[in-house]
């Protein structure tokens, strides 16, 4: 019965497997009305933007609850469980609380910038989703410089966060802003170098092309670029502002970082923008490294956009996981990690990937021969680089004193004589 209905559904607007049919239906309807051609673009972008906006709002509401419950489980406590069954209505209650709270503007704040910064931070974080290929045809703007667009639009956040921190006339906010700028700039370099791997393999910066390449060769770029994925996830964690990278709002040191004085819905904007940035990084990881809407034939049975969003949630869960388990790093450790560790090995990685692509193209090897070899070479190269470079920098050789953690010694913890480490 259902099997017989599937071909009938194909191409109809109520076919949920490909929401682009619905958009097509609306656009041809507009075309029939005899409106000028440019209204179609406006309508298409509005439809896509509204769809993405609704999805992000629902996801954020869901993940506020999931994150708090999951982190609660990890830290051996319960988490929100009072509002609604299992605390499910907690995010809604929080949202209403933020909406109804008084939005205080502190004395001495630069009112104009103080008001503009929360609005300005929201636009780029939402605009990133324009180039995310949710399905084969479900991509709002299939730019041929899509990968660059991701980096560029995320980069707009840097000055805006600084303006937010500066406008409050509060030294803790300014310190938080300084910290986040230092982090964002250093890890942006790592992010760009990590992105070069997939771009070199596919030789296109179009997001849809990158997913189509992975579909064509029936592989995920993760398997041929494990080091790139690792570096991208670490660099992306800076944008999500979660521990171990949450020094910008380290509440035990600098109150709440760059949004110390923000209250009410203005704080809500920052809170939501943080979640959106996390989703955007996860979405980029899925498209670039984890095969996008493809899943080795599963996309024939499950709508591609559901596969995509499921993968996105899995990647985002990794960030929640690391938040619940890893300690916060110091600013000097974060900077040293970016500049002394990730940057050199990613530079070498680009050289290796370039050589591999060159050898593959010049000798006209078939993908079946070349890709497994490239994958193996890159895997061992990645392991060798991570281990070797850490040794070269003098890490990972902490004195093993019984059950003590080497990592704790490695990051500079002080041990006193006779104290068990």
């Amino acid at each position: 019965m259902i099997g017989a209905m599937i071909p009938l559904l194909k191409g109809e607007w109520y076919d949920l497997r490909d929401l682009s049919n619905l958009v097509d239906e609306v656009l041809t309807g507009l075309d029939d009305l005899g409106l000028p051609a440019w209204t179609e673009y406006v309508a298409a972008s509005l439809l896509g933007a509204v769809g993405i906006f609704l999805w992000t709002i629902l996801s954020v509401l869901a993940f506020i609850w999931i994150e708090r419950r999951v982190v609660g489980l990890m830290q051996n406590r319960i988490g929100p469980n009072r509002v609604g069954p299992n605390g499910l209505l907690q995010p809604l209650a929080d949202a209403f609380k933020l909406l109804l709270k008084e939005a205080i503007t502190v004395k001495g704040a630069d009112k104009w910038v103080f008001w503009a910064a929360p609005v300005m931070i929201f636009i780029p974080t939402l605009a990133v989703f324009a180039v995310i290929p949710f399905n084969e045809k479900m991509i709002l703007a299939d730019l041929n410089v899509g990968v660059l667009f991701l980096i560029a639009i995320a980069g707009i956040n840097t000055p805006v966060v600084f303006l937010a921190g500066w406008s409050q006339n509060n030294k803790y906010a300014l310190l938080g802003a300084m910290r986040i700028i230092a982090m964002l700039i250093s890890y942006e370099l790592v992010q760009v170098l990590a992105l070069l791997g997939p771009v070199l393999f596919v030789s296109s910066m179009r997001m849809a092309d990158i997913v189509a390449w992975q579909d064509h060769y029936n592989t995920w770029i993760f398997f041929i670029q494990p080091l790139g994925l690792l570096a991208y996830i670490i660099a992306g964690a800076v944008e999500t502002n979660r521990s171990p990278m949450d020094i910008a709002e380290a509440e035990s040191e600098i109150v709440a970082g760059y949004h110390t004085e923000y209250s009410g819905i203005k704080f809500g904007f920052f809170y939501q923008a943080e979640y959106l940035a996390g989703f955007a990084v996860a979405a980029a990881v899925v498209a670039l490294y984890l095969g996008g809407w493809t899943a080795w034939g599963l996309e024939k049975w499950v709508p591609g956009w559901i596969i995509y969003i499921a993968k996105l949630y899995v990647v985002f869960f990794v960030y929640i996981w690391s938040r619940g388990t890893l300690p916060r790093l110091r600013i000097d450790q974060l900077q040293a990690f970016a500049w002394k560790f990730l940057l050199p090995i990613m530079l070498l990685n680009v050289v290796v990937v370039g050589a591999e692509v060159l050898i593959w193209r010049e000798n006209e090897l078939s993908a079946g021969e070349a890709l497994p070899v490239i994958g193996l070479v890159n895997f061992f190269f990645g392991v060798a680089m991570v281990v070797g470079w850490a040794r070269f920098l003098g890490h990972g050789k902490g004195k093993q004193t019984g059950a003590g953690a080497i990592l704790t010694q490695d990051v500079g913890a002080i041990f006193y004589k006779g104290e068990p480490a």
Partner: protein
Amino acid sequence: MDDAGVIIAFWILAGLTVGSALGIAGSRNLIHAVVFLITTLMGLAGLYITLSADFIAIVQILVYVGAISVLFLFAIVLTPTANRTNQDGFLALPALALCTLVSALLIFVALDTEWNTPDHAGFTETATSIGALLLDKYVLPFEIASVLLLVAVIGSIVLVRPEPVDESVEAE
């Protein structure tokens, strides 16, 4: 520029760019000027898009909005006297005269030049050809520029590096 959509986009972006450029010149607070600078640069990127220069537009946002404006912000914050009102200086009138002359010159050139209007060949992507040209025909200037940047990076590190502590002195 026949399509109404492109014309509407052009006027919105032109208004944004010129309006915020006036804001840069008019704002007394230097941080406000940087906010206007950011919107000006974004408007310029939008104008590049209406000219089908996709790569340049994105790089404009990446380099100028994401990096150069942060540099401006740091320079302003690190300058102790950045908050003084400097619009009433004795150079205000000469500056106004100079700016008027420059803009008059630019308007004259723009009106006097016989512009070549390209025919509408449709959108061709530019990123691939820019990459090919940079690494093929213009590889020497490209390399010279990267060496220059490397020298600048190393130079800045050398400048801010603390003097190495002489351990033999400390031991005494």
